[in-house]
């Protein structure tokens, strides 16, 4: 490109004006941080979907989500879930892990009436008529704790119903709820999760069930003790995310983010105009020393875009730091990893495009200002 040297020079000029650079970096970094924040927070669909897929290895498109907040039953949320599912005819059984006082751990299945069907471990229990076609294997996923007992590929026959273990939910791949949210029955993938099948033609994969042994508040305490901030992810949220067509909340959040983005545009516009108004002397000097008017305009655009781009990069870095701090390391890493990759991917690109757009837009006012200015006035000698 013919004017590449001017672009290069314009970017250097930005780095040379240090005070201005710091000021504009702080302002645009805050603005872009906010854009990122709202983009990430509003685009929860993607976030949960990715986190879910990463945690389970399942294709989220093939999974049906349902609100399973167990408000009335704290200890056995999975039992409540089972109730809901069976009432809906989506599921005939769900598994949960129960730990008895004497330390014995058993897996139990519940039906819609919350009647204990049978105990997997010692193969006792009431007979329940499952309507699954005999001979058909129903895929299930097991938690870490069942890895030994039910390795991948193993078949489990419970009352004429055949289950095939499709996978193990890895310990490192967890979705841990915010401990403060535990009481409303949000889901987490723990060591002791069984995934029961959904009998629906529309969905290939299984419904994911929450199953937990210890009382939720106990888990909350343990998590808090380990210093995990956790992340709120509940089936309720997941479900909402998937009801894209008539999701009022999503629409409101989207328009909110649009308002934020527009505010940033205006903020950038005003900021850049302000910066330039301090700067016209420099442009006059450039003009007097052979810069063409088009060079000066290109410099204005380059400076604005570059300054905003640097600010955007700072904003993205700040956002990453926030994610790191809030979502910590270790157990909450699925959500964090997904958020970080989103940062660098989609939002990173969007922020860059936004910087270009705002920078170019913000250059209009100063260019008009410069065009109307008599640059020679700067050099009139006094006698």
């Amino acid at each position, binding site marked *: 490109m013919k004017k590449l040297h001017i672009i290069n020079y314009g970017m250097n000029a930005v780095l040379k004006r240090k005070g201005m650079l710091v000021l504009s970096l702080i302002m645009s970094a805050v603005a872009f941080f906010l854009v990122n924040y709202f983009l990430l927070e509003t685009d929860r669909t993607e976030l949960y979907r990715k986190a879910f897929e990463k945690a389970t290895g399942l294709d989220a498109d093939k999974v049906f989500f349902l609100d399973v907040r167990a408000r009335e039953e704290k200890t056995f949320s999975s039992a409540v879930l089972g109730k809901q599912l069976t009432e809906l005819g989506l599921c005939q059984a769900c598994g949960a892990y129960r730990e008895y006082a004497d330390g014995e751990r058993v897996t139990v299945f519940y039906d819609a009436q919350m009647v204990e069907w049978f105990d997997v471990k010692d193969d006792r229990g009431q007979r329940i008529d499952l309507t699954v076609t005999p001979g058909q294997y129903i895929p299930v996923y097991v938690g870490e704790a069942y890895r030994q007992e039910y390795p991948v590929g193993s078949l489990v026959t419970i009352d004429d119903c055949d289950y095939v273990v499709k996978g193990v939910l890895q310990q490192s791949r967890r979705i841990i709820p915010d401990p403060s949210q535990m009481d409303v029955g949000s889901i987490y993938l723990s060591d002791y999760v069984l995934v029961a099948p959904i009998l629906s033609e529309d969905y290939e994969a299984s419904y994911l069930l929450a199953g937990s042994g210890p009382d939720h508040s106990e888990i909350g305490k343990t998590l808090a003790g380990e210093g995990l901030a956790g992340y709120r992810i509940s089936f309720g949220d997941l479900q909402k995310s998937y009801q894209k067509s008539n999701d009022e909340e999503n629409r409101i959040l989207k328009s909110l983010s649009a308002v934020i983005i527009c505010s940033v545009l205006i903020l950038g516009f005003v900021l850049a105009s302000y910066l330039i108004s301090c700067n016209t002397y420099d442009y006059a*000097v450039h003009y*007097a020393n*052979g810069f*063409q*008017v*088009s060079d000066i305009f290109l410099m204005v655009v380059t400076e604005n875009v570059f300054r905003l781009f640097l600010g955007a990069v700072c904003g993205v870095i700040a956002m990453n730091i926030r994610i790191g701090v809030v979502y910590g390391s270790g157990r909450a890493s699925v959500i964090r990893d997904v958020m970080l990759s989103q940062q660098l991917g989609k939002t990173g690109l969007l922020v860059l495009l936004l910087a270009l757009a705002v920078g170019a837009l913000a250059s209009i006012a100063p260019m008009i200002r410069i065009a109307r200015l008599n640059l020679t006035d*700067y*050099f009139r*000698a006094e*006698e």
Partner: protein
Amino acid sequence: MLKVENLTKTYGKGDSRVDALRGISFTVNDGEMVAVMGRSGAGKSTLLNILGCMDTPTGGSYTLDGIEVNKLSAKERNRFRRDHVGFVFQNFALMGQYSLLENVELPLVAKDVRKAERRRIAMDALKSVGLTGKADRNPARVSGGQQQRAAIARAIAGGNNLILADEPTGALDYSTGAEVMELFRDLQKSGKTIVIVTHEKEIADKCDRILYISDGKVSETL
């Protein structure tokens, strides 16, 4: 050769109309050093800005190096200015965020000269004004005389033949001003054509010729 004929410049309209130049004609030969004198508001800066293609005359003609500048389009005129004129201002017009060397490089950036080449030419220019050791200094960290010498280095770095200076010694004390005038003499010896606006007779006397401007007209004598 620089030649203006019946040059006029009018600012504003109606009641606020100012006839800054009312028909000015003169020639400056290549390699000449000419002073322009006149009282404040006589139109000296206006004339210089027109000669430097920073401004356009309202009427008359201006020819430089065989080109009729007043017939050029705005874009062509800007390019012509870049390739033919170097400016020196009373207030030096150096940029504080750049070193002296970077300031001197400016016209070379405008001409898209490569960086290494730019450095070399700018260093040569600084050397010719005796500022080799101060190349990396900030303008604020050198004296006024040194700033003006750097500004002169910048005016010649682009390699243009016509140097226009508006009160170049106006912000300097007498002896520093005299040093700067020595520098202009040296430039003239190297073949530059120089027009210096000044209101100091001592400065003007160091030039080959003096043009007096009053009431928007020019004369060779007071």
